[in-house]
């Protein structure tokens, strides 16, 4: 294990009844780094994110954060330790305003020095601060989801298909925001199908298939790897 790794996933397995979703996944994300996670639908990417963020407990294996074993911790406990995430399909707190959505997360953070107005300003949501969150469009809801996660001042941000459903203009905007967050020192694990977007925001990628990692390295190298090509193009 690398000593500068913030997140270490060791042999993580997850079964749902008879279905094995993860088969001993290993990966590391260095402090301040950004690792991409790609793979076909059903390869276990979101399951892995759910385990790292505490929504699922793994069937076997360990998750370490900064050397500390955090396997099986509950999501709110992990949030207090500086792990947060966005959701593939965000479900903002619909009856609360945009500002209140961020305030709720900020109010439960044990780490955050951030301010709601700064977060909303950074995400260009300041004009919508008093709108009910349920009235936002998809791109705005995704940005709000990111804002809610930022409110807890995460050291590790798990980004689950933030780019899905966004226009090219919105994608560039989100990539710019994620890169700005990296410069602040936030470590990221980014699940994404959009490889162009991934190339803009990550250093390396792990490619997953059928619950196991089959490649680690640069995205350009992944495109030439025979196993990866077989998974994506069927040989």
């Amino acid at each position, binding site marked *: 294990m690398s000593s500068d790794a913030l997140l270490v996933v060791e042999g993580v397995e997850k079964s749902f009844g008879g279905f094995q979703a993860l088969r001993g996944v290993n990966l590391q994300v260095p402090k301040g780094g950004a690792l991409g996670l790609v793979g076909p639908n059903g390869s276990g990417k979101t399951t892995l994110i759910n385990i790292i*963020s*505490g*929504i699922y407990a793994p069937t076997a294996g360990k998750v370490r954060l900064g050397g500390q074993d955090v396997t099986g911790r*509950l*999501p*709110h406990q*992990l*949030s*207090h330790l500086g792990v*947060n*995430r966005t*959701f593939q399909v*965000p*479900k*903002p*707190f*619909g*009856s*609360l305003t945009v500002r*209140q*959505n961020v*305030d*709720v*997360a900020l*109010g*439960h*953070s*044990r780490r955050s020095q951030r301010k709601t107005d700064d977060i909303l300003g950074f995400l260009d949501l300041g004009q919508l601060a008093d709108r009910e969150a*349920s009235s936002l469009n998809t791109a705005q809801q995704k940005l709000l*989801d990111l804002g*809610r*996660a930022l*409110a*807890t001042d995460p050291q590790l941000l798990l980004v689950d298909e933030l780019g899905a459903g966004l226009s090219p203009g919105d994608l560039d905007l989100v990539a710019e925001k994620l890169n700005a967050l990296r410069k602040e020192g936030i470590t990221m694990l980014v699940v994404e199908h959009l490889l162009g977007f991934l190339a803009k925001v990550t250093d390396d990628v792990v490619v997953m298939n059928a619950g196991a990692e089959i490649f680690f390295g640069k995205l350009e190298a992944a495109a030439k790897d025979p196993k990866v090509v077989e998974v994506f193009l069927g040989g």
Partner: protein
Amino acid sequence: MLYALIAGVLFGLYYALIGLGLNLTFGVLRMVNLAHGDFVMIGGFAAVTAFSAWHLHPLWSLVLAAVLIFAVGIGLYYVLVPRIATTKDPEMISLVLFFGLSQVIEALAVMQFGNNTQSIYEPVFGKAPINILGQPFPAVWVVSGLVSLLALLLVYLYLYRTRIGYSTRAVMASREEAEVSGISVHKVSAIAFAIGLGLAAAAGALAPFMLGGITPDLGVGLTVTAFAVIVLGSLGNPLGTVAGGLIYGIALMLMQTYLPSWSALLPYLLLLLVLLIKPSGLFGRQVRSA
């Protein structure tokens, strides 16, 4: 007609109080507490017993029953709900489990109080009627309406003006997003569940007057009525319960005035109509998918 409408509002506020706790519980847990009506019944017997044993005024019994049942609710939540939540089908298991709890509570009530109707027959709220718009109403109806209104207002302030209330609304919107935002979902849910039971017990303390008396088998029927009220307003949205309660109360009073023999059917008729015409409730957002 005016009398029926005003009486409907007074009873509507009371029925909103009965339904509010059930809706709060559903909102945070996505589980229907089929034992809800039994906690109304417990509150009723508590008031009757406290009055006959110590001559305690029912309004004091109401406060005591609400606080005690709130404490019971916290314990009950941690005994039952986290285990249900880890099962494969929490909604179905919760229906069976809360139905079982309802049967146990009813059986214990029969053992303790017998099957006869019990009530408080003394005019503890005064003998003189209270006039509203020239119409005389029993004082207890007006007091019950006002107490219910106060309780509804307190729940509104809790949900919309306190930090834990915001957290409760966050959990209602999305448990997963709330959890990763640092909210202890079990803590928030336990408090909401306990408040729900406390409100039921508070409503129960007024039941000897508003419902004419208390019997151990009262719970099942009251759960159906409460369910009709919250479906009518909006399942999962506690404030919709107030609208549901008012519509139910006014409809009930109009039925009792003009079609008394049909009034017992009202909860079922309203449930059927709302589910057929507007399943999200008359004042509802999309809070359930089936």
